[in-house]
């Protein structure tokens, strides 16, 4: 295998394949950026212009006039960061209990909790909405955030990771008089940093891209998150693609930066959970 790969012809072939695959992933991104720099009448011109003849930032300007996009970016960050922190706290605490504490019915509860993963969110959306109304949380940040904080997925991911930590570590601590809290905070959490980072990345991405729930629970443009605002750009009959693409660029850039910073954890996340975000 090693020998074959090192032969120059194989290498060239391999790179050719990789370049083609990379291009299929990358071209839509470039097209998005290119479209966002065009004027509307050139968006669908034939033959397609890959590099706009007259690039303009007009669509970005229009975007800012049409919707409070700056506010929406801030909202998206508030929601995504709160959900991430919330999921880490709730997930890790629940995971610790399920992984380390012995009590009757634990596994049944855990299975029941996991089973909630099977219920599509569309089913629960109306009851959830009614619940939020009773709490007076329609059109509020806590209304968007709270349902996204508790996920069986996060608990499951962290529980599996906690189970791999050798018990000897904490037994030594218990002998020295540590409480569950100390063990959780001082031993389990620091050791599980990679798993926590993976969950953080997933949670952030999920909250950043969340559409249906934020759409339902917000009416006010000043509370809306980016994906909801972006959807408002689609007309019933017409869509100004340059505007939509400019909005998409604005939405994707923060994710891109986070991705580049946390690339390792994304890869690890895919490996450990078998899921792609």
């Amino acid at each position: 295998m090693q020998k074959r790969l090192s032969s120059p012809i194989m290498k060239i072939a391999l790179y050719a394949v990789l370049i083609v695959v990379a291009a299929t992933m990358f071209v839509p991104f470039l097209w998005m950026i290119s479209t966002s720099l065009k004027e509307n009448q050139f968006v669908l011109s034939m033959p397609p212009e890959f590099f706009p003849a007259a690039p303009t930032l007009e669509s970005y300007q229009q975007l800012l006039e049409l919707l409070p996009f700056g506010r929406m970016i801030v909202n998206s960050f508030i929601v995504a960061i709160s959900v991430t922190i919330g999921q880490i706290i709730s997930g890790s605490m629940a995971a610790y209990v399920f992984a380390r504490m012995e009590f009757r019915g634990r596994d049944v509860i855990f299975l029941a909790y996991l089973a909630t993963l099977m219920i599509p969110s569309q089913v629960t959306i109306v009851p959830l909405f009614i619940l939020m109304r009773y709490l007076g949380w329609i059109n509020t940040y806590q209304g968007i955030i709270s349902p996204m904080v508790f996920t069986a997925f996060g608990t499951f991911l962290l529980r599996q990771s906690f189970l791999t930590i050798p018990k000897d570590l904490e037994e030594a601590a218990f002998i020295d008089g540590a409480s569950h809290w100390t063990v959780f905070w001082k031993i389990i959490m620091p050791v599980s940093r990679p798993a926590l980072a993976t969950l953080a990345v997933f949670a952030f991405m999920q909250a950043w891209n969340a559409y249906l729930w934020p759409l339902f629970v917000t009416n006010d443009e000043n509370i809306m998150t980016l994906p909801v605002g972006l959807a408002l750009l689609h007309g019933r009959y017409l869509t100004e693609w340059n505007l939509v693409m400019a909005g998409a660029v604005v939405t994707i850039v923060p994710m891109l930066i986070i991705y580049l910073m946390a690339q390792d954890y994304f890869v690890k996340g895919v490996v450990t959970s078998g899921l792609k975000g």
Partner: protein
Amino acid sequence: MKKTFAFVIVFALLTSTLLAGCAGEPEVITETIIETVVVTEVVEQEVIVTEEVIIEKEVEVPAEPEDVTLTYFTFSAAPDHLEDLDEMIAIFEAEHPKIHIEVQTATWDDYFTKLQTLIAGGEAPDIFELNYENFVSYAAKGVLLNLEPFAQADPAYDETIYYPRALEAFQYNEMQLGMPETFSTVVLYYNKDAFDAAGIDYPAENWTWDEAKEAGKAIMAANDGMWGIHSGIQFWEFYKKAAQNNCEFFNDDQTEVLINSPECVAALETMLSLLDEGVMPSNEEMAGVSDGDMFTNGELGMLVSGIWMFTAFENAPFNWDIQVEPGMETQATHFFSNAVNVFAGTQNPDAAYEWVKFFTSDPNMAEIRINTGWELPTLDNPEYVAGYLAQSPPDNRQAVFDSLQYAIVPPVIERQNEMTDAVGAALEQAVLGILTPQEALDQAKIDVEALLN
């Protein structure tokens, strides 16, 4: 162990107080504001007593007791006409200083899902937009306020200012459950340059589909890379072309489904012949590009579409115009209308009626709509028509109103969406050649019958 439980309980308590705090705060603030308002009113009255009589009269004029905020949920404003809507609201609020309109908006794709959730969740907007096809489902569920008593109590109300057809469209069981806001028609768009290149006459008002097909062939022969015509094969086009061939979906009292009658089958065959004879691109051949975009790109000689496409075609690099859609045995055209409706459970029906009246009949509203191309107000007023006709492109705007003569409304049943899906699925089978037109409509008859019972 005990410690941990104690911690959990403390944590839970803390969170609930924190969250309760978040929820509670705004309410407290509103209450205080109301109190302050009351206080100032009292102070004003006291001042008035000591002052001149004239001032006292001026203060008495506004009869409404307190400020009212109404929520208005719309799909037609986003994204291009939000500013125009704001402009209208500013005029309305200037005329009605006690009423405030709060706009909520969603795009067409999400609008009805969200509206259903809002109503089911008890957060229904006071006023919302409905198009005709969805109107019946909402009317049947009893969530719409009857506006008739409000109109009758209003001396300024005059029903003759609306197009009667539009007003009728939003009546249900002899109740006026919505007021028509806008209408649009569907017309035949054609690329003038393509017709010139082929050396044939422009479409005439009383064209048949066979004539359109022949013109399409001539266009394809004379213009490289151009298709003749596009007119989708789906539920909406089908019920219209069915009507052009005197086919009815139902008998008069909707007890029998007639969708597989020979007239209906012939109408579907005419539609499919455009595909079979290669005048119209198939979905695969369009490869995801919309018919409107193909027309703008000069890849289509003719297109059947709504007048809402005027703005999209404004900058097309060729000359184009419109004509009344071709027919078969007779002419029939689409008539689409949106209405504003009031939620039956609103706290402020009188104020809501004021907005409905303004938004459907005020001259300022009509002027803004016409000038910005935000559909057409349903007001039968020659002045507005003249203003609309004076604009260009297209030159032949008269066709928009000519089409109205042949306007039909879609067949509507209570389970409308399911019927649309069932008939749509049958048509698709016919397009794919899995079923013959007769078989497809036989299938549609069985499916629709199941929905009637």
